[in-house]
């Protein structure tokens, strides 16, 4: 009756298990405030996962001057498949006068997740592993129309070695198509020249359709997006997600207006698994290898870690630099003072010498006069 034993049913069994246990996906959003990070998250999952920061609350604690890490957990269900979402937000990034240490909390957070996962893995019982490793990081670029700023480059460089980095031009509805094109080209050039490794979807050679899709995705990096939580009526009479301006309606899901659909496809529809796997295989593995290497080479792990932290933390470095600067400035000022002093003394000496000379000259003259007189006297 049956031609097959049932081994080929394994994928189906697997599917059952997977759909029962669900999956975890962690997404980090980074970028200056006011670029629409929260709006984008809410647009992406079409629910209000995150509430907007209450503006009035700021006044109680004064203007925030530190970068915070804000985690939102949510469980989404679509066609009986559950996914546990972790959204990591970084409010306060890039808001300050001095942003030199703004990205440290981000980096620390990513590293800490790798670290805690590794520790949990090494435990004897590890049935319940808490996994907060960041699978993808969306970096929001301000739509200046110029290019990336030094801060952007610095942060993207740091992030790209640790996580799947996806650059995004947010609020793209303030740039005209021509401007977006130029802007994208410049950003791509900078990314290439600065050797920033951004995430690019894999091109599968045997599957032409998906390869083509990936190519399109790669070409439109960095994605220019518009976010909106409200539905408006477009000229065709449909209710769509969009932004209603006095001069027209910018539609979120219109390919002509934004790359939102492409980005959603990259993050959720086609490449989610790839994002999760590459985090596991590439970023976690490199971190683990580095870590184990370091602890093997140096027994005193905790201490070396501490010193490493100290060495790597720009805050300390900055303080050190400042102290050094103050010191050298003081030394310089003192030296300058001494030099001036010396100069004054030299000047004084010269003046004295001149005085002395003139006095000597006078003496000479007088002597000569006496001589003359003597001669005269002798003559007479």
């Amino acid at each position, binding site marked *: 009756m049956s031609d097959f034993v049932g081994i080929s049913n394994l994928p189906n069994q697997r599917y059952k298990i997977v759909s029962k246990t669900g999956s975890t996906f962690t997404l980090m959003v980074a970028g200056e*405030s006011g670029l629409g990070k929260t709006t984008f998250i809410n647009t992406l999952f079409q629910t209000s996962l995150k509430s907007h920061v209450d503006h009035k609350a700021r006044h109680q604690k004064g203007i925030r001057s530190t970068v915070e890490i804000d985690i939102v957990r949510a469980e989404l269900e679509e066609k009986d498949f559950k996914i546990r979402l972790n959204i990591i937000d970084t409010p306060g990034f890039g808001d300050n006068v001095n942003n030199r240490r703004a990205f440290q909390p981000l980096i620390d957070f990513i590293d800490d997740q790798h670290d805690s996962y590794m520790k949990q893995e090494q435990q004897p019982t590890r049935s319940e592993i808490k996994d907060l490793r960041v699978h993808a990081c969306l970096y929001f670029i301000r739509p200046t129309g110029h290019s990336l700023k030094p801060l952007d480059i610095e942060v993207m460089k740091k992030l790209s070695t640790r996580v799947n980095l996806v650059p995004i031009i947010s609020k793209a509805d303030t740039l005209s198509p021509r401007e977006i094109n130029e802007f994208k080209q410049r950003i791509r050039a900078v990314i290439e020249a600065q050797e920033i490794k951004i995430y690019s979807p894999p091109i599968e050679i045997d599957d032409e359709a998906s390869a083509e899709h990936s190519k399109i995705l790669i070409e439109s990096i960095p994605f220019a997006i518009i976010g909106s939580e409200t539905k408006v009526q477009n000229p065709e009479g449909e209710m769509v997600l969009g932004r209603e*301006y*006095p001069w027209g309606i910018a539609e979120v899901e219109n390919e002509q207006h934004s790359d939102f659909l492409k980005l959603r496809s990259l993050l959720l529809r086609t490449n989610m698994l790839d994002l999760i796997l590459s985090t596991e295989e590439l970023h976690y593995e490199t971190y683990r290898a580095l870590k184990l290497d370091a602890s093997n080479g140096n027994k005193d792990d905790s201490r070396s870690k501490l010193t490493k932290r100290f060495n790597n933390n720009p805050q300390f470095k900055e303080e050190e630099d400042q102290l050094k600067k103050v010191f050298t400035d003081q030394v310089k000022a003192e030296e300058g003072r001494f030099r001036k*002093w010396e100069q004054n003394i030299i000047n004084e000496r010269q003046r004295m010498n001149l005085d002395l000379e003139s006095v000597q000259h006078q003496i000479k003259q007088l002597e000569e006069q006496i001589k003359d007189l003597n001669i005269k006297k002798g003559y007479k």
Partner: protein
Amino acid sequence: MNFLSSSALRRKKDTRRGVKFTIMVVGQSGIGKSTFVNTLLDTKIVPHKYEPIGTTIDEPKIASFSTIDDSSTINAAVFQRDFNPALADQEPGIAITESEVEILNKGDYSRIFLNVINTPGFGDNIDNEVCFEEIINYLKQQFDIVLAEETKFKRNPKFKDTRVHACLYFITPTGHGLRELDVEIIKKLSKYVNIIPVIGRADSFTKEELADFKRNILYDIEKFNVPVFQFTYDDDEEAIPEEDEMSDEEENILSENKYLQSIQPFAIISSEDEIEIDGKSIKGRQYPWGFIDIHNPEYSDFKLLKNVLLSTHLQDLKDLTHDYLYENYRTEKLRAVNGINDETTPETKKKEFLGSRDSYIPEPPSLSNLNALANIKDSMILEEQNEKDFANILDSAQLNSQPSISSFAQETISSQKSIDSKNRSQLRLLSETVPYALKQEQIQQRKQKLAELEAKSAKEMKLKEEALEKKALELKLREQELLAKMSELGISGNASFASDN
């Protein structure tokens, strides 16, 4: 109400001569500063950060600049025509550029000489502290130049007032409110210039969002005490009925100010591109979903701001700068300088001495300074030494350059001529020392007296000397006579020996 008529008179006078007006634009790069200026003046006078190759534009004069890293090849002062991605990670520092343009109003033939100060690089660095200092220094220098000119004996009739009358601060369109950077810079700059906050790139907001954003900003301005330019109107003043002189025009001004105050901060959309619609070319932005006319008052305050800057409030801004901001600066400056000479207690004097070391004339180093540095508590000794020190300063100044008053003034004039670019800081130093002029004069007089006395005594000495010499000569002559007599007597040898002494 006489004030108004006098200012109206002044306006008339100014119209004929042409008005000099200086505005500064400050804000993060990429929020449309350059575009705004170019749109405002309808000419391309400020270049964008990256210009496509082939465009020709006069590069504006660079007033000053500073870099974060000396070795950096990227510099905000250098305009990058072609974009170099390999260097994009270097911090640009900040530059301050000046571009001048003359606007001719065709209606009443009034002229405005507009000086536009741009600040490329602001907010582009990872650490933006350097930008603050650079801009503040620039503003201070302009005040100092005027101060130096005022204190001069002989004023330069062609003196150019470079004080900045208005500063447009471009708020980054976050939709949230003011950020730390915004609050800090506005607070710092507002001591030296009228700040008009504007929202750049207002086309990123829908109507409701814009209203929200404006409300948040106003709330922040109030909460954090951010001093921005106020369009003054007074509710009480209007109510006085017997004030017949209150003409319609004045009432209009009041209600206009009220309106402007309510609309602040101005939301601006600007564009250099002209797009043809219905046969007319209109400045605007073309999006796939619609077209923005920047002059449309429904969503862009561009027209309003242009009006405020170039006609209705131009004189207000100038007056406020001169009567209030500059006056305050001047008082503070002179008081600070005079504070050193005041008779104060040793303790405060010491504090002042330590605090204001940088601000007064370059002092020669001396032991007392070292003592002060080491915070030696014996302030009595310190004071004594300080006084000596002060004498030293003047003495050494005398030694080094012999600055009599006339030469002092000459120095100021000559430096005035060459201030164009670099000597500003030097001049600043000079202007600080100008208030010393009177003090210097006194000392000078005393010195002259001394010199005269010396010369007198020297003369006397010479006269005495001559007299003595004469006497000596007479004595010698007598001696010779005696010798001659003695030789006659035959005992010459001994006498000649004795006369030698």
